[in-house]
């Protein structure tokens, strides 16, 4: 383990001041960073430990759910607000690492890692989440879709800090589902992960709004907009879901790597999108409850 300085700021302003120093790196849950430090992939001069900042919360006000960036996945799983209003995010939290990982890893850390397989990304993309970023010039709100700019690259400028994740409480007649395919059931990176959200009209048939997002099948977690357009405004049906799933499989750009071939990823994406949409449909019509 290389040497570094270590600071534990207690306010966001202090943290930003420290992060503006050269060679400083933010330490959130540490489940990625400590591995990279040990392997010599990164060599910061200073670690800025964010654990003493007041960024550990799930709140709901004015129809907006606010999650502090340092909230752990275990806390997200335990949150009644998340389980009720953003069930798809709770489903993804349950699939991250194992108990130990979830007790350490944070939502902000997972998003900032910006890995294509980040499990929390597809659910937040389908909830149209925004991220609040603090810097020396103040705060800015960025749609999550614009936060991922490349493999392991996020939209943070040097010295900036992601402090909060926001999502609106979904409308009635909304169903959502997260599904992950890994090489094993725990402690595995996604081969493919998928989230889908459907909001139906008052007739319980017409798709008012739909979001489909996938991970590990492109340089960043991404939405499948062509697949969304297959459903948007139409009456939902099995065959339409089938078509949307095929469209999603067509528009992604998977690679072959250690975990799976591109062909397998594409075909798995189709199956997972179909299943996720089917679950979301059932939930939106009240046939099933979240976390069934």
């Amino acid at each position, binding site marked *: *383990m290389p040497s570094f300085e270590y600071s534990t700021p207690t306010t966001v302003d202090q943290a930003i001041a420290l992060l503006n120093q050269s060679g400083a790196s933010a330490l959130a849950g540490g489940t990625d960073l400590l591995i990279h430090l040990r392997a010599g992939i990164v060599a910061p001069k200073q670690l800025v430990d964010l654990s003493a900042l007041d960024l550990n919360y799930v709140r709901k006000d004015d129809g907006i759910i606010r999650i502090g960036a340092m909230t752990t996945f275990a806390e997200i799983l335990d949150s009644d607000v998340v389980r009720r209003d953003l069930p798809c995010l709770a489903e993804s939290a349950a699939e991250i690492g194992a108990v130990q990982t979830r007790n350490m890893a944070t939502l902000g850390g997972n998003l900032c890692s910006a890995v294509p397989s980040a499990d929390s990304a597809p659910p937040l993309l389908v909830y149209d989440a925004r991220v609040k970023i603090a810097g020396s010039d103040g705060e800015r709100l960025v749609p999550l879709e614009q936060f991922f700019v490349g493999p392991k690259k996020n939209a943070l400028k040097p010295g900036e800090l992601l402090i909060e994740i926001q999502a609106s409480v979904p409308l009635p007649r909304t169903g959502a589902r997260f599904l992950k395919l890994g090489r094993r059931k725990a402690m595995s990176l996604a081969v493919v992960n998928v989230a889908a959200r459907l909001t139906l009209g008052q007739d319980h048939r017409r798709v008012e709004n739909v979001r489909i997002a996938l991970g590990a099948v492109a340089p960043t977690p991404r939405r499948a907009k062509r697949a969304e357009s297959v459903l948007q405004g139409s009456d939902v049906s099995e065959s339409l879901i089938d078509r949307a799933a095929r469209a999603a499989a067509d528009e992604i750009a998977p690679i072959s790597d250690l975990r799976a071939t591109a062909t397998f990823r594409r075909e798995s994406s189709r*199956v997972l999108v*179909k*299943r996720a949409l089917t679950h979301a449909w059932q939930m939106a019509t009240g046939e099933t409850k979240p976390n069934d």
Partner: protein
Amino acid sequence: MTHVIGQRIPRHDAILQVTGKAEYGIDLARRGMLHAKVLRSALPHAKLLKLDTTRARNLPGVAAVITAADVPNNRFGFTHLDQPLLAEDKVRYRGDAIAAIAADSLKTAEEALRLIDVEYEPLPGIFDPVQAMEPDAPKIHGESNIASHIKIRYGDIELGWSRSDEIVEDTLTTQMIEHASIEPHAALAEVDGRGMVTVHSSVQRPFLIATDLSKILKIPLNRIRVVVTAVGGGFGGKNEITMEPYICLLALKTGKPVKLVYTREEEFQATTVRHPYIVKYKSGVKKDGTLVARQARIVSDAGAYVSWGESTLSKACIHGAGPYRIPNVKIDGYLVYTNNSIGGAMRGFGVPQLGFAHEVHTDHIAEKLGIDPLEFRLKNALVDGSSLPTGQVLESVPLKETMRQAVQLIGWKKEVAWDEKAR
């Protein structure tokens, strides 16, 4: 009289294991002990042009650095004395040891590793054992990459082919597997005032290690003691000498206890693995499902050194025809050097690779003949008094009974629910 069969007898050491009091290799500690690290080759196949340890030796906190010149007998191996403890003129896989360091802290030892200057001349590497058998392939040791050829001949294979109605051929391959015991290899060596060397190590075969140490260190066996710690998993991977000679040499050189623990990365890179096999089967069979001839050609990827490669391949060849009565058998096993990680002992010792291969092949034959795979096996299975291709006569073979019970237990041929719609 005490009855133990059918009783729950707790492990005698379980109480230490569940309370965290069992002392494993990684838990060893002595006052004033030094920490060792091993410098490993960065290239899979290269000439060593230059090895300069001066800068490492001069780092404060470094107690000793050893290279090939410090090893009294720098060759070891079970069937082939082909492996240097520390590389001499060349390195043969990415992980070959080049030098070892003892320092007052692990951090210093790690830093010193980076101060050893090595200059390589890369040589073409060979990573596919079939290619390595070609006459013009780059050579890893001496004249040929074939380290060993094992032959078994039984009956008359040509006669077998002529009596066959069908010939079925298959090529099956198995992958490299790391033992991945949760405890990495770990050991501590100490030398007392009389020059008595004691090694505490997380190993499976202490006497073999003592014998090897005696040869490598050129110290009589009665002056070497190997004490086995609690072993955090072995599976064959702690069946052979690994780090013990380095720490013994460093302890002898410094007079201090020396401890070494491999990192998880070293476990994968520099300890042995299960040999990958390429198995070519050709079987002759009558229409009624009677096996009459089988030929097997087994290519085992030894990696850079033989280690247990010949022993595991011998066992694989003995089992090469599978558990079937076949009157005409021809088996050829080739152990081939490559620049891959070294194969060694692992659960089943060469046989699981063959088990996979001959059973897939068996299913394939049954399918071609349109015979139920279970019936096909029962028809040809070894029975009491059967002879193996080696000539060994088997006395008690409960194979058929085992198969019959197994198919009942697994619900053979029961329908499995399959949700077509979910796809």
